[in-house]
């Protein structure tokens, strides 16, 4: 089997970034901002050109796409037609598998029945809804544009539009949140019976409106650590009781409904990022697209209007070069770094251990022939087992609940 054959058999994920929202949320430090309609359209066209430019490479390597994720920002601020055009371009450039998981993030405040139908029609088969809370007061504080009623309505519309795989994003450890307000949110959400629930603890990111408010003493107090951990435990127990399996630090799913795209991140699956700021991991190299919208546009917009209206996208410079290489859309890709084997091993561990199932020895040995887990991490694993933050499974190791609580502290030990 040649190397090319091997690659051909390897699946690829796509991440498509839509850096727009209607209003920046108070806690958000992602690459996203409100923009006018014209800018959004310009971005969509540039994005389509970027997608189309990958056609040669995708065909040559023959990799099929098994998951796609449209994230943001709020991809649903785009018009249905814009999403359709993006998806069309994807299908032109890539061989998208029939059973591919195609997710899109949806802000309940941007949903209407028609739009949702159009999204479904464009091939989106999984929605990730940023509900965050079922307490209006908490939603206001978060700076969300929707309220509880709209969230419920959006969920029902999604079902009606034919989405049978929906995730609900929730946030715990919010300022002013109490144990009972969190429990109420969980109860409410479970009644909807979504297939998947992500429950994140709020992290105060420096530079956000929240951090500034907190520094100024203008936020209600955060739940104390004990309450925070109680919420976390309760979440796990309560959701387990409703048929959701805890499979990653912040993720819960009905059996078989785990997010395949996100699992790919933890297991070293290759993915190609499209749009500004999007991260990629292809052929053992990590790289990112530039984060600056203007530069991105100036690079991808053709010099004359005629070409812009035309659909000749394959004549971009470097479109035949390997992804991330200097010739590959030079000026868009940054921070390209080919991982060494040591780095791959580190990632295998600190990403793999985020999964509740942990890592498997055999898997390790298959990925890194000639290397033994025991030789590299024997001491660390021994320490972690003794500290009770890790436990042995049938095939390998996983973090205990306590270990997950303090996973940053633990996982740092797996850096070589």
């Amino acid at each position, binding site marked *: 089997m040649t190397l090319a054959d091997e690659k051909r058999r390897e699946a690829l994920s796509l*991440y498509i970034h839509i850096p727009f929202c209607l209003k920046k949320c108070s806690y958000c430090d992602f690459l996203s901002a409100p923009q006018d309609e014209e800018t959004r359209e310009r971005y969509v066209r540039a994005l389509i050109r970027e997608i189309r430019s990958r056609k040669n490479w995708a065909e040559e390597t023959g990799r099929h796409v098994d998951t796609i*994720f449209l994230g943001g920002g709020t991809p649903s601020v785009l018009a249905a037609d814009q999403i359709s055009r993006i998806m069309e371009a994807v299908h032109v450039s890539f061989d998208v598998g029939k059973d591919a998981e195609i997710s899109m993030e949806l802000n309940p405040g941007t949903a209407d029945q028609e739009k949702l139908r159009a999204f479904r029609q464009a091939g989106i088969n999984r929605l990730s809804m940023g509900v965050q809370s079922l307490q209006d007061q908490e939603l206001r504080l978060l700076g969300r544009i929707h309220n509880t009623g709209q969230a419920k309505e959006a969920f029902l519309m999604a079902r009606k539009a034919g989405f049978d795989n929906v995730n609900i994003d929730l946030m715990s450890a919010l300022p002013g949140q109490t144990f009972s307000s969190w429990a109420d949110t969980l109860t409410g959400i479970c009644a909807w019976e979504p297939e998947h629930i992500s429950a*994140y*603890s709020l992290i105060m990111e420096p530079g956000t409106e929240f951090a500034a408010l907190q520094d100024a003493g203008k936020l209600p107090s955060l739940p104390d650590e004990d309450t925070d951990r109680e919420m976390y435990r309760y979440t796990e127990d309560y959701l387990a009781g409703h048929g959701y399996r805890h499979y990653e630090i912040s993720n819960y799913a009905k059996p078989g409904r785990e997010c395949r795209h996100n699992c790919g991140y933890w297991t070293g699956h290759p993915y190609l990022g499209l749009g500004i700021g999007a*991260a990629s991991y292809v052929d053992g190299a*990590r790289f990112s697209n530039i984060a600056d919208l203007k530069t991105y546009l100036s690079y991808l917009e053709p010099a004359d209007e005629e070409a812009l209206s035309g659909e000749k996208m394959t004549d971009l410079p470097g479109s035949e070069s390997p992804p991330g290489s200097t010739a590959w859309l030079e000026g868009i890709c940054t921070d390209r770094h080919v991982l060494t084997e040591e780095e791959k091993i580190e990632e295998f561990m600190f990403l793999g251990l985020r999964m509740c199932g942990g890592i498997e020895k055999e898997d390790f040995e298959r990925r890194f022939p000639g290397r033994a887990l025991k030789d590299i991490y024997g001491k660390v694993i021994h320490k972690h087992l003794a500290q009770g933050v890790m436990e042995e499974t049938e095939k390998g190791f996983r973090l205990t609940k306590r270990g997950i*609580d*303090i996973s*940053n502290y633990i996982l740092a030990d*797996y850096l070589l």
Partner: protein
Amino acid sequence: MQKEITQDKIRNFCIVAHIDHGKSTLADRMIEKTGLLTSREMQDQVLDNMELERERGITIKSQAVRLVYNARDGQEYIFNLIDTPGHVDFNYEVSRSLAACDGAILVVDATQGIQAQTLANVYLALEHNLDVFPVINKIDLPSAQPEVVREEIEDVIGLDASDAPLISAKQGLGVEDVLEAVIRNIPAPDGDPDAPLKALIFDSLYDSYKGVIVFCRIRDGRLRRGTKVKMMATGASAEVVEVGYFGPGQFIPCEELSAGMVGYFTASIKNIRDARVGDTVTESERPCAEALPGYKKAQPMVYCGLYPAETPRYPDLRDALEKLQLNDASLFFEPETSLALGFGFRCGFLGLLHMEVILERLEREYDLDLISTAPGVVYKVYKTDGTMIELTNPSNLPEPSSIDRMEEPIVNAEIMVTTEFIGPIMQLCQERRGRYISTDYIETTRAVLKYELPLNEIIYDFFDALKSRSRGYASFDYELKGYEESKLVKMDILVNKEPVDALSFIVHADGAYERGRKMCEKLKDEIPRQLFDVPIQAAVGGRVIARETVRQMRKDVLAKCYGGDISRKKKLLEKQKEGKKRMQTVGNVEIPKEAFMNVLKLDTQ
């Protein structure tokens, strides 16, 4: 320019003063006036070579310079001016400089009058049989009261101040009067140039090309290139390679140094210890009958442990201390090991300022990152078996059952203060276990408070407290009185039930609870959370008197790992790992080394 220099045209002197009374400025003006440097070449305070000295405006190291003065009588004189430190901690430096002089200029600030160190330094000079004459400085200031100060000098010190020059060193007023007064009031050196060589080493310096540069004052005989010399105390011999005198900031070689002169020589001496400050240099073949008395070696009064923040730099710290010691014989050090801090040194200093200066020099000049333990004094521990040990490191305190009694050093402190602050200062001394002796009024608004104070009560922040409670007006000096029995206990700090040797200290039983409690509180804030609850305890002889708990780490999760941005996640873990590397493990607890430093920085207010 080497003309025949006769002894009667030489004057060897120094300037003594209370800190900030203008000693270094006067030295600068004298250098300028004698034409050694034009004022354009002058940098302020020429003699304060060290960066640190300029910055702090204090003189730490003695410096010597030769001036050639064309006097009003038409004669040319050679002045050897030796600048001395003004701070009480550096009395030892002063003392060794004085040994090279025949007289001293006493500078008194016309606005402040006599201060504590004015007295201390004058007495030191008189002890060395120096002729002292006063100069009243800063007469240009509006608040100057030269006549009042003149009277004060006569009343309090008993020096004739009737023709004391009134000057402003800053503005260059009256500097020539000072130069003339030097000729009049300071005796020319005596000594026989033809007798066997007898020279006092008053300082030295290490130069990587020339070896040790020995600063000396020739009492008898001559010293020139080729002279075979012997150090009388160490017995080391060497052949002189170069002799010379001191230009401002440079060494100027000359033919010969003879009786009465001050200068330097080099003799390819590689080992610092072979040319000990205070030793007498003589000729190998024609030794003098007996050595000069030298002077009393200063005993370190304050001790602390010094450790490199990065363990592999231990040898660098040792080298740096050795080099500093060459320049500063009063610095003492010996290796010690701490469970918490690794390999380091127990160091002895003359006082807290001396300690601070050494620490700063180590960090700046030798680029070392240091951790120092709490400063302590030397305790005398009398054991039940009749023996006595001098305790410089609290960790070495014997079992309580084998201790009969302990004594701590007591100082006689003189605090000069304006009367409005007498109350607050007395209260401060009371808080520091002071024993009141007397209040002497110098004039109606100023008094000298005399107290006996335990040294260990003044080594932390007494200066600062004094300054803040007197709005900067009080000045302070002390000398060791002796040892007295005291109710002392050793306080151990336990982290996760394990004593941390670097944090142990000796404290008076009455203040133990307070200190222990504060220590625990501070440590609690400095120790990062661990996987488990960490108790922090202060204990005296096994009895816990204060306790805090560092609660276990509850949550440290990066929940969202967005859009596959693994690099961001890794950076976060790397930061965490970096933090772990700087930790020292004590009793299963990871403690950053800075924590020790921060806890030991005692602000007892």
